[in-house]
């Protein structure tokens, strides 16, 4: 295992992410650099583990955020995904890239959070119905923002597999083969889900 790798490298691949208001265009990771870091992390090197956490957090949060569309819930899910990944590092066999493996964990964590939310929403809906009459009209700024987010929000109306395939393909920047690894499906199924999702989105957006 290579011992003297710089630990301040970012491994996230070419995905545009905004951190605290700054948009970062991060460089593509060298696979051997990623492999060396992962090997060190698996060996218990905490500095390597922390480097992996820092490097992939924007990817993981980006995915949970788009799947859940609720910042607090997405942050909790991203945190849980990272903790689970570090706990399960020994189970990473390298069949897929570390990033793909991590995104799969993030998807599972987000699914679990979504299930809890749907149970909670059943209760919340009662409160919303009671308050509906007193709710103020949204102001113009809110309306503009709602319109700007329309395309992304429409994703929520897609069936889960199509939503996931479109998000992984467009936002996480995965190939169809990688989408299939995350979704545990065939590459053909990943491709079909992506195209059905895009078709449905076009219909929804008129």
């Amino acid at each position, binding site marked *: 295992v290579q011992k003297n790798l710089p630990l301040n490298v970012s491994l996230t691949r070419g995905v545009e992410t905004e951190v605290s208001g700054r948009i970062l265009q991060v460089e593509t990771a060298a696979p051997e650099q990623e492999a060396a870091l992962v090997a060190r992390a698996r060996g218990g090197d905490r500095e390597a583990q922390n480097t992996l956490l820092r490097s992939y957090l924007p990817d993981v949060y980006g995915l949970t955020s788009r799947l859940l569309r609720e910042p607090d819930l997405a942050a909790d899910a991203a945190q849980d995904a*990272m903790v689970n990944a570090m706990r399960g590092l*020994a189970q990473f066999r390298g069949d897929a890239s570390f990033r793909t493996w991590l995104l799969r964990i993030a998807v599972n964590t987000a699914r679990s959070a979504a299930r809890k939310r749907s149970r909670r929403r059943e209760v919340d809906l009662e409160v919303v119905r009671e308050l509906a009459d007193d709710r103020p009209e949204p102001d113009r700024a809110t309306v503009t923002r709602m319109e700007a987010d329309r395309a992304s929000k429409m994703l929520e109306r897609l069936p889960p597999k199509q939503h996931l395939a479109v998000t992984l393909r467009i936002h996480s920047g995965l*190939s169809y083969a990688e989408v299939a690894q995350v979704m545990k499906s065939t590459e053909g199924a990943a491709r079909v889900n992506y195209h059905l999702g895009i078709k449905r989105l076009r219909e929804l957006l008129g």
Partner: protein
Amino acid sequence: MSERCKNVRDRLPDLMAERLDDAEAAEVRSHVALCKACAAELALVRSLAADVVTVPIDLEARVLLAVQRKRRNAWASPGRLAMAATVVFALVTASLIDQPGREPGIESDTSVALAVDEALTASWPAADEPLLEAAPSLYQLSMEELEILLQELGS
């Protein structure tokens, strides 16, 4: 939809992410320039890709802290607490053996070390907790881990 349209639409996310080589990108762009349906799909892909997510400013610190906590909890797992108890038992037993009037010799020191080693070897959990794989014996623990152990022994 023609095969050509299918092929182009398949690669639109790659075009957006600049993952196509120059020749492929030019081929996709020239088709999109002539095909309204593919141009509409590119516009949709572009608007989706433009949705940039802002990572909360405190999330990185939160995650690092959560992982650190998990490591500590893993350290204080039942298996390790049992190990600590066994070490204490070994030390107490050794101190009872070293009664006043008896010369504390090499033999008793060795027996303490052996007892501690045996206790550590016997009760150290299997390597299914990857975060602690780097600390296989008491002698290789960091100061932080030793402090945690001492706190646990003192409580």
